[in-house]
């Protein structure tokens, strides 16, 4: 039987209350939301907090919606809520692509967007998706609220910019007119962590790529991003050749490691191929008029690739 070690339990009734509890109990306390990473880690003694601070009751962190051309995602938004939201699918199909292949529907009922990002697992899909769309993390602490670009949020495996005493409260993603996005993942079986995955967002202007965002999952890419490939694409015409070259550049600049999911060379191959596919799909969506702000179609499709 796997049971966590003993701990004390506190239920936060508001964000200030959660922050007060974090301050009172110090670095040996941990915030729990969905608990689908933390509880298994506690069972295995990979984590052994003295105190758990339950934030599940903080409805102010469950907000999901568009405010002034920014998609705002509360840290406590469940994966299932994120996946079911039509505005998310319309403006950022990359998130729905990714959510469909994160764990399974029952786990998605419980797990949260903020928890996924704070867990900072190198194989976590949303981290790369948020990196691709250049989100901003909003962190609240005793001193107030501060904003951190998502590409500075993850400092390494299981390590984030959220300091002791602080709480990730929401993510902000700017809606860019003319942008379209996609996420592509290869997994060993339904609901598994990726062998490798890639997300892409393209903003086209006058027939050329004004800005590209590329996220990489599980291949040792710093901050889950592929800046060299993004720079290459800027100003290029979208097309098979440019996308393949961007994939080659992304693959050359990541650092996958062999594990039970596959050898490094295979993962590197996947990184390049999945970047190419994600860019191709994003460009297809842009052409179909599913780009941000261009209409109501979500471009939802299943089982591709």
């Amino acid at each position, binding site marked *: 039987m796997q049971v966590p070690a003993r701990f004390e339990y506190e239920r936060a009734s508001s964000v200030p209350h959660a922050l007060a509890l974090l301050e009172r109990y110090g670095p040996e306390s941990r915030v729990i939301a969905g608990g689908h990473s933390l509880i298994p880690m506690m069972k295995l003694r990979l984590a052994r907090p003295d105190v758990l601070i339950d934030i599940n009751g903080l409805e102010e962190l469950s907000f999901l919606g568009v405010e002034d051309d920014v998609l705002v995602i509360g840290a406590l938004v469940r994966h299932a809520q994120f996946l079911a939201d039509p505005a998310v699918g319309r403006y950022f199909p990359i998130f729905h692509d990714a959510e469909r292949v994160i764990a399974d529907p*029952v786990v998605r009922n419980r797990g949260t967007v903020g928890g996924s990002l704070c867990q900072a697992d190198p194989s976590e899909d949303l981290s790369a998706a948020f990196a691709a769309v250049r989100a901003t993390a909003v962190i609240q602490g005793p001193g107030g609220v501060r904003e951190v670009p998502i590409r500075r949020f993850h400092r390494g495996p299981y390590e984030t910019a959220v300091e002791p005493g602080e709480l990730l409260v929401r993510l902000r993603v700017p809606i860019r007119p003319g942008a379209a996005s996609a996420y592509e993942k290869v997994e060993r079986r339904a609901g598994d962590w990726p062998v490798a995955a890639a997300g892409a967002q393209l903003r086209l202007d006058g027939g050329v790529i004004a800005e590209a965002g590329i996220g990489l999952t599980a291949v040792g890419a710093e901050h889950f991003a592929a800046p060299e490939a993004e720079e290459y694409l800027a100003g290029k015409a979208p097309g098979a050749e440019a996308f393949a070259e961007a994939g080659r550049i992304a693959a050359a600049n990541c650092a996958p490691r062999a594990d039970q999911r596959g050898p490094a060379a295979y993962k590197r191959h996947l990184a390049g191929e999945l970047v190419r596919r994600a860019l191709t799909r994003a460009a297809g969506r842009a052409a179909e008029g599913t780009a941000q702000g261009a209409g109501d179609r979500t471009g939802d499709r299943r089982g591709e690739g």
Partner: protein
Amino acid sequence: MQITVTVNGQPYTGDVEPRLLLVHFLRDGLGLTGTHWGCDTSNCGACVVHVDGTPVKSCTALAVMCDGHEVTTVEGLERDGDLDAVQKGFAECHGLQCGFCTPGMMLTARWLLDRDPDPDEARIREAVSGQLCRCTGYENIVRAVRWAARHEAARAGAGTEARAGTGDGAAGGTREGTGP
């Protein structure tokens, strides 16, 4: 720590350790052994129960997190001595072999039918994709859920044509590559 959890409509108050998992609270504390305790790692789905109407893997939830909430276990599917349509479907269509995954499968199926009364095979397979049948009896599980959907549609139609005669769904259904 004292908690009050409403289980199958009945409130239970008790003192629990914060580290007590919901699955053990139900099985050992309340004697509701219909909730099965399987992999302990949120992979197999044998322990699925509803918390406030939503399926949750109870091996990965703390009992204290359910304080003030409503839990439904497989024992709560039956109403006034009448089995739920999903339970009847599993009986009619041989939806279980060893029965270990069955409570979780039925609770997820109930949730699916509450949201989508006429799911196709792909949708059923997607809904239970986080649940493992160690007998690999997925074909009959899908048939059982389809049976329940037809049964409920027929009952809702109450004498109208409804869709009672639309065939089994599973037999000639299409397969999706992402099945469990």
